[in-house]
């Protein structure tokens, strides 16, 4: 399933958050949307998820404009995980994850297929031992993994996640990034908004660099995370290299 935008313009209260954005998100790839604060990363993700309407331009799912697709099909095809996801009631972890199956449900009932999807999602995010606990009792990192499991339980072709690893410990950060990469390899389209440039360099297949609503660059991480781009967009200096045949990058100094 291919996801692409064409000449997207989003304006809110006289300020242009996205300016003529045309991007392509390929299936089977983990794409990162990066850029400094206020670049429009979350706005782009939210617009892709259907939460923000654009003033101009279109979003296409397999060359069909999203406004021609039913809400139910969209919900089954695109899974969205917001920044700092919340749960207002002290539901058990497995109940929270099961909410990800809502796009397929008729009424309140889950079938075996739903249960399997939920199980898989819980194991993948390493929360299977927490399933009967009320979500409010969990730590920040555990909660974040539960919320990711919810998004994974939908088994949608496209996953949009806004800073999904920001509150996790290093081990889980690595595990989740590896997981997302694995999922991408099965043919899914994964789009992440990320701040952690070292993870971006290591795990993303493609990058889209935004700044002040404009697309500055796109391509694979080494070609986007150049010293020039980092200097002009982020205002930082970095060090980089290779380890075990993979590229690494570390922000070093503000300029």
């Amino acid at each position: 399933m291919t996801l692409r935008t064409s000449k997207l313009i989003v304006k809110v209260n006289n300020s242009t958050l996205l300016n003529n954005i045309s991007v392509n998100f390929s299936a089977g790839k983990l794409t990162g949307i990066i850029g400094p604060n206020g670049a429009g990363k979350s706005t782009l993700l939210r617009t892709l998820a259907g939460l923000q309407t654009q003033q101009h331009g279109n979003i296409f799912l397999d060359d069909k404009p999203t406004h021609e697709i039913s809400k139910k099909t969209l919900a089954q095809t695109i899974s969205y995980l917001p920044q700092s996801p919340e749960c207002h009631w002290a539901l058990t972890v497995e109940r929270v994850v099961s909410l990800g199956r809502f796009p397929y449900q008729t009424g309140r009932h889950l079938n075996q297929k739903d249960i399997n999807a939920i199980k898989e999602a819980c194991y993948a995010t390493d929360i299977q031992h927490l399933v009967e606990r009320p979500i409010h009792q969990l730590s920040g990192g555990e909660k974040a993994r539960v919320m990711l499991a919810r998004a994974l339980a939908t088994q949608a072709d496209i996953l949009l996640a806004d800073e999904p690893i920001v509150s996790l410990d290093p081990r889980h950060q690595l595990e989740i990034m590896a997981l997302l990469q694995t999922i991408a390899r099965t043919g899914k389209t994964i789009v992440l908004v990320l701040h952690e440039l070292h993870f971006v360099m290591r795990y993303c297949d493609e990058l889209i660099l935004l700044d002040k609503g404009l697309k500055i660059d796109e391509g694979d991480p080494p070609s986007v995370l150049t010293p020039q781009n980092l200097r002009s967009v982020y205002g930082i200096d970095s060090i980089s290299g290779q380890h075990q045949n993979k590229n690494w990058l570390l922000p070093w100094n503000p300029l």
Partner: protein
Amino acid sequence: MMSFTYLLETKREKRLVLFFLTVTILLFFASLLIGDTPLNIAPALQAIFQGHHTIDQLILQHIRLPRSLLAIIIGASLGIAGAALQGLLRNPLAEPGLIGVSASAALGAVIVFYSGLSLIFPLALPLGGITGALLSVTMLFLLAGRNSSVLTLILAGVAISSLAGALTALALNLSPNPYASLEIFYWLMGSLSNASLNHVWLILVPTLLGWWLLIRSRAALDVLSLGEETASTLGVNLSLLNKQLILGVALSVGAAVSVSGGIAFIGLIIPHLLRPFVAHRPSSLLIVSGLGGAALLLIADMTVRLVPTQQELKIGVLTALIGAPFFLRLILSSRREWLS
């Protein structure tokens, strides 16, 4: 520990519903037996089925039966509406009485009743209550719906309650009937004492419609726990859901208040007490709260009939005596969460 089959299990919930249903039915029959005149139940029932009119039959069918039925219907409406409002506004303090929905419904009913409109057109009475309730829930939703801050909700509720109460007092004072201004207490505190079968028929249709709207929205209420935006991406039609919930609450609470006055706190106490039994799941809470509300109001009504005061105690006074300290305790025990 890793029992995902819990998600498939519906037995626990069914057992809970069955339990409350049984309790409510038993309380209903007990309520028929309570009154200040001794009644021979068997001959009275016989007379009802045979269509004869005896004194015992009249007392049972026209005084005790409507009163007990209204207690069930109104208690259930208040319970369901409380649970629904809490799901809609994602706030455990939302309750028709506390946030001004009952007061607005009372205002609508008072205007219709004391202007004489309901004497010409009886259905105008529940319609008045429903209109009042609809206006206030809509206003509350616009003021405090998307912002889930407890403070905003309570303040909006206080503002709406005060305004509705003041307008109700004004409307009663302007009425030409000399008894009107004394009846404000009834409208603000609530009472089932003059219940008649007419009242039951009058509110039956809007109440059932309201319940239906609320119950069919319950699956989406669960998803709403994740917030409006996430729910929308999961396929929930937010505007339809909000409209269904608002209209459902307005219909059931509006109709109830138009014949009983504003009975408060049932929609706060029952969902709060029952939430742990349904693992905090909003969709499960609805029906169970309805039954719990019916049972609680039946108990309160029976108490009011048994307490030997000269003028019968208004039932709303009793629910407030229990509910207000309960509310205070809620505030004290979770102060930290609500200051955010």
